């Protein structure tokens, strides 16, 4: 009895610091965002008194559905491209001998650690009218001399894939590293084509990694703000740009909150789905182990 109380005390002692910190500085602020979305703005850039539906109602304005739609398609395309590049890469890396595998892993990790702004800036330089890529494409007569590679949705997509790809490769690789490649050999011996072996043995084998990669790319992509801000233009704005504009330019915090609420809901949907899928798999695995 006494030991169980002591155990309880120890549990609270190691749990409370981080729990309290996150409740105050993460949960509470998120609730405040939801509350302020129902507040009117005051003309001094602050928050007015009373409660109102009008801030949320103003999101019906035809501009917003277009931006929300664009945010969704850019994020989806980014995620699909990252998975399409990340899966074959992980497949290749996981089969290398350990020494070379470390080298390749390091080559993926370095961009992952490199300053986010620096990597975006590097692309701005490359895509600039005087930049290397523009000049090469003009020399090859692939683009017009006055076509702009920057400030459009294509540039945003390219830089998003560039930025988020390491976040897709690393979890997929972590799963592929544990994958038993002899299973593929076995399937091949039994007559499966290499594509069939890849699709029905490898992909299901690394699905946890794919799920993590999906969440690690899709969710941050939904909230992208710096990339469309630096390499995008007025026709490639995403919801993140609008939140920043309402906060810093118009100083309309209730409006920015309402947009954040929309973004939070957009993020929660894939997150909950992902967590539920993982939990179901876990339960499945546990039942399996217990011979049920």
């Amino acid at each position, binding site marked *: 009895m006494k030991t169980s109380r002591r155990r309880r005390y120890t*549990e609270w002692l190691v749990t409370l610091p*981080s729990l309290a910190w*996150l*409740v105050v500085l993460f949960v509470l*602020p998120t609730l405040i965002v939801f509350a302020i979305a129902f507040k009117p703005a005051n003309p001094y850039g602050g928050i007015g008194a009373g409660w109102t539906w009008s801030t949320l109602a103003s999101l019906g304005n035809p501009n917003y559905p277009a931006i929300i739609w664009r945010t969704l398609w850019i994020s989806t395309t980014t995620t699909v491209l990252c998975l399409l590049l990340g899966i074959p890469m992980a497949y*290749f890396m996981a089969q290398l001998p350990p020494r070379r595998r470390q080298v390749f892993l390091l080559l993926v990790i370095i961009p992952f650690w490199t*300053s986010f702004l620096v990597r975006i800036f*590097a692309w701005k330089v490359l895509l600039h009218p005087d930049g290397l890529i523009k000049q090469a494409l003009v020399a090859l007569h692939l683009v017009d001399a006055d076509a702009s590679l920057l400030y459009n949705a294509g540039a945003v997509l390219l830089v998003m894939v*560039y930025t988020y790809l390491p976040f897709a490769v690393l979890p997929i690789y972590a799963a592929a590293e544990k994958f038993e490649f002899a299973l593929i050999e076995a399937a091949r011996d039994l007559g499966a084509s290499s594509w069939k072996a890849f699709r029905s043995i490898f992909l299901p084998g690394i699905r946890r990694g794919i799920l993590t990669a999906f969440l690690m790319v899709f969710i941050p992509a939904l*909230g992208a703000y710096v990339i469309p801000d630096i390499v995008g233009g007025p026709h490639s704005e995403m919801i993140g740009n609008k939140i920043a504009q309402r906060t810093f330019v118009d100083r309309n915090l209730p409006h920015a909150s309402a947009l954040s609420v929309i973004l939070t809901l957009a993020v929660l949907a894939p997150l909950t789905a992902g967590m539920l899928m993982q939990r179901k798999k876990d339960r499945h695995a546990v039942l399996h182990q217990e011979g049920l």
Partner: protein
Amino acid sequence: MKRSRIPLYTTCLVLLFFYLPIAVLVINSFNASKFGGGWGGFSLRWYRELIDQREIWHALRNTLVIAFSATALSVVLGTSAAFALHRFTGRLQRLHYTLIYTPLVVPDILMGMSLLLFFVALSAQLSLLTIFLAHVTFCISYVAMVVLARLQDFDFSIVEAAQDLGANWWTAAWRVLLPMLAPGIGAGALLAFTLSIDDFVISFFVAGPGSTTLPIRIYSMIKHGSPPLINALSVLLLVITFVLVWFSQKLTEEKIK
């Protein structure tokens, strides 16, 4: 048996894609020509000009003050969280895990926005302190996850052995568990430090006058400033990154041996 070459080609192309922009940036930082279009000869001019930029040094100082302090506090909170998550199970820890995990996936802009509103609601003055509080908030989760991963591979029979030999739980944790986990905690600290140094979005939302950090400074240079200077600054940051990655690799290698 024929093997598909697609994975090999994809990997090579992706690595080229990863490094081409970085390589161009490094080369251009030594380019005497102000406009990146042509090669104007080798020059260290941009690095010299960088030294005279007082604002950059001021911003760097702010960044380092925040990074060191936020890392220190988040390592303590994150490590203790990882212990709790690993050692205990039940409703409280499930809630705790959700709270630790969610900030990892929430987009930066939402975290920045919510913290800004929180500080506005408290009528707190935006300053280095608000940036520090924000950084600790997102670093806790990363530290906790890295340390938790190490705890999961950890052989707890060693701690039990210490307890059998008469050590109480705290002595065993302090004298046995903690030293053996030091590489994991170090890796978590490095990650927190790097994330703090690199953070732009969250800092931008909660920064006040006079609390410009290096990424905020770089952002405004990208928006309005001179590209060659940013090239030179970027290369310096790249060098720092390489050193940090090298350190963190060392920490991981020790674990493998």
